[in-house]
């Protein structure tokens, strides 16, 4: 009898997986054709994408960039996009009626914007935070122009106030509440007695001037950026204060905050903008009138501050009550506890909501076109009113939509990155 036992001494070389299980085919099978319903959905989606792209790609890719008017475009090829309007009017879409020889000013402001937010976004640069404080005044001066000294004097007022406060607190040893009062008084004294002569003097000694530009000349994406970013910057601290007020133990403060938040959240932004353009003159002392852009910024700010307050309140509510108790047990005062313990955690929880509010605010800046300011959407109808471009729709809308999409999508992606970065728990 022969020996039928068999012992394999060498490993068999690995054979390739069956063709249906190879990477790409398996992926397609699992993700696209795992059942009859899935296969149907896949086929429908592919067909849908094909329909969309079949018309869009030749239209956009073959677009005409060099024609002088929509007539010429239609003469060359009526079936493709007429992007010439963007070539001819991109300056207006970006800057409105800002004088073209001064374009360097908004561009410089825009670049400095990133420099100024770098210390806030990147922890490593926090020592340059002073620039973020200077930036708002600098931006106002660069954009509107005029003499630098009025803007400078406002900063000087803040310095005066701080000086008064610290001298009262550290040198004269007053309580902090009283020192705050002294700081406030020194700001008032500064504005009444020092600011006027100071501005006149320095305008004479050292005239640093830029061409003054009227608010009505602002427009396009520049206007959206100004309204959006000032609204974002101003609504964040106000929103925090409102949220704290709403969570406060003081019934009166709480009532005022709740009333304010619910009122603002209950009405559409557009009615508030109408109040800014029509009614604000009623509420101010007779004879005063101030800049329409500032009025719009104020309204947009209080609008999004109310939403921001609700978002932050959600974060505060999500925080375990033990955090409050522990910080009180450590002997921290209310503001210390808020600054060191409560807010860092509450804000971290509410990052997605905060960024959503920012995005909403930025999108809502288009509503200013309804009170006849010329933001990109308002400019689109203005450009169409021109004989040369009468009948242009999609090219402009696609361009404007793309600009907004890039900004808003960028913000939302950044917020997701921030959420991942700040995540400290293991869940």
């Amino acid at each position, binding site marked *: 009898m022969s020996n039928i036992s068999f012992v394999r001494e060498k490993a068999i070389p690995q054979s390739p997986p069956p063709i249906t299980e190879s990477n790409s085919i398996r992926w397609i099978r699992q993700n696209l054709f795992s059942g009859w319903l899935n296969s149907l959905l896949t086929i429908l989606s592919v067909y*849908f994408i094909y329909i969309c792209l079949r018309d869009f790609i030749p239209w956009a890719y073959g677009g005409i960039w060099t024609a002088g008017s929509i007539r010429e475009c239609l003469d060359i090829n009526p079936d493709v996009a007429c992007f010439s309007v963007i070539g001819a009017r991109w300056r207006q879409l970006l800057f409105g009626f800002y004088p073209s020889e001064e374009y360097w000013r908004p561009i410089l402001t825009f670049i400095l914007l990133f420099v100024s937010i770098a210390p806030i976004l990147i922890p490593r640069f926090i020592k340059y935070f002073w620039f973020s404080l200077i930036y708002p005044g600098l931006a106002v001066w660069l954009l509107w122009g005029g003499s630098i000294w009025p803007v400078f004097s406002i900063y000087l007022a803040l310095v005066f106030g701080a000086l008064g406060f610290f001298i009262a607190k550290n040198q004269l040893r007053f309580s902090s*509440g009283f020192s705050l009062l002294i700081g406030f008084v020194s700001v008032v004294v500064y504005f009444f007695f020092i600011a006027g002569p100071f501005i006149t003097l320095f305008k004479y000694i050292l005239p640093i001037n830029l061409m003054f530009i009227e608010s009505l000349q602002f427009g396009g994406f520049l206007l959206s950026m100004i309204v959006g970013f000032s609204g974002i910057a101003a609504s964040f601290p106000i929103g925090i204060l409102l949220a704290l007020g709403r969570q406060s133990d003081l019934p009166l403060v709480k009532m005022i905050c709740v009333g304010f938040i619910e009122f603002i959240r209950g009405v559409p932004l557009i*009615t508030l903008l109408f109040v800014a353009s029509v*009614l604000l*003159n*009623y509420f101010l002392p007779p004879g005063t009138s101030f800049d329409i852009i500032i009025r719009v910024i104020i309204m947009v700010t209080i609008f999004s501050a109310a939403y921001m307050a609700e978002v932050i309140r959600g974060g505060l509510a999500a925080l375990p009550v033990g955090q409050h108790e522990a910080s009180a047990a450590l002997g921290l005062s209310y503001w210390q506890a808020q600054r060191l313990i409560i807010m860092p955690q509450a804000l971290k929880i509410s990052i997605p909501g905060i960024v959503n509010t920012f995005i909403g605010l930025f999108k809502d800046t288009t509503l200013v076109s309804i009170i006849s300011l010329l933001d990109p959407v308002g400019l*689109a109808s203005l450009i169409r009113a021109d004989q040369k471009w009468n009948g242009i729709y999609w090219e402009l*809308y696609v361009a404007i939509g793309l600009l907004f999409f890039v900004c*808003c999508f960028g913000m939302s992606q950044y917020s997701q990155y921030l959420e991942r970065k700040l995540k400290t728990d293991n869940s």
Partner: protein
Amino acid sequence: MSSVKAPVEKFRLGMLLGDTRYRSTTVQVIAFIIFVAVVFWLVDNTVKNLALLGKDVDFSYLWMRAGYDINQRLIPYTNDSTHGRAALVGILNTLLVAFIGCIVATILGVFVGILRLSKNWIVAKLMSVYIEGFRNIPILLWIVMIFALLTEFTPAPKAFKGADPEASMIFFQSTAITNRGAYFPSPIWGEGSMYLLIIFAVSLAAIFFFRRYAKKLQEETGKNLPKFWISLAIFFVPTTLFYFLLGSPITLEYPYLKGFNFKDGLYVRNSFIALTLALSLYTSAFIGEIVRSGILAISKGQTEAASSLGLRPGRIMNLIILPQALRVIVPPMISNYLNLTKNSSLAIAVGYMDVRGTLGGITLNQTGRELESMLLLMGFYLCVSLIVSAIINYFNRSFQIKGM
């Protein structure tokens, strides 16, 4: 032994700020004074300004003749009607857009949210593009874009004319989409249609009672009736039966071309379609995200526990996942409905006459009563939103997990 007396504390002015016992009162008094001062300042300014302009606060203009036409109205209105009635027409138009918009947005949003969770890669990606696209582009731009699409790229009514027309009606020759608006078939309520409606209402009630009975039967005896099929039968059979018994009381009236325009049928303006469509598409992107996060919020253990109890997938969804997900989904969904209602004030961009267009638009401009009109307008929106928040709060209370 000498007794030690507790030191008598003397009240000092500094304690108002320094002592926590008094500080809260001090802060509140200061806040109150500032608040009253600001309100007084605003009211005082308003009174002075009104006096300067020679105006007064007077709402009687609401009972005066309006003198302008409104192209879409749900209640009778002519230009001889009052400003108050014009405002009412506007309010109803706003509510109409909001109502239809909310329904469409919910249906679309639920679809999109569920499909974005699909295992099918291409469908999930497509839905991501849909959601990001609508969320990141301003609503105003969507409204004007869809309006432009409807007015500039649809055929004029005269294109439907002739033996070999350039355009044709869709859905079995029943609906025409033109650059003036869409024409749908409209129902004609003939004699006896009232009875039909009553029968339909009765069968709806019957379905409700039947389901309650079936549930009771199942809880008491464990017997399971085929609920779905019986409900379906109650829904269709009696109404259809009586429809023919009564001799087809409800007929459809089709729009037809006469001269250069369509006649008869239900005419829906492009401004209305564009506004409603844009609002519902935009809001559906947000609702989709809410639905998705609501489903994701239910931990996987719930599904696993339910299946280890022996429940079938359909029942797991109905009995375990949905009731829990709804608790997460409904409150933000309602606040999105509210946003849709408020965003409907952008109707002005396409010339739809909502309450902002009538009361806050033409009436305001004609009468010069800015203060009164804006107050009424804000009051209306505020009322809607306060009523809806009351509903949300009621919902939150009644659906909270008990004992938490």
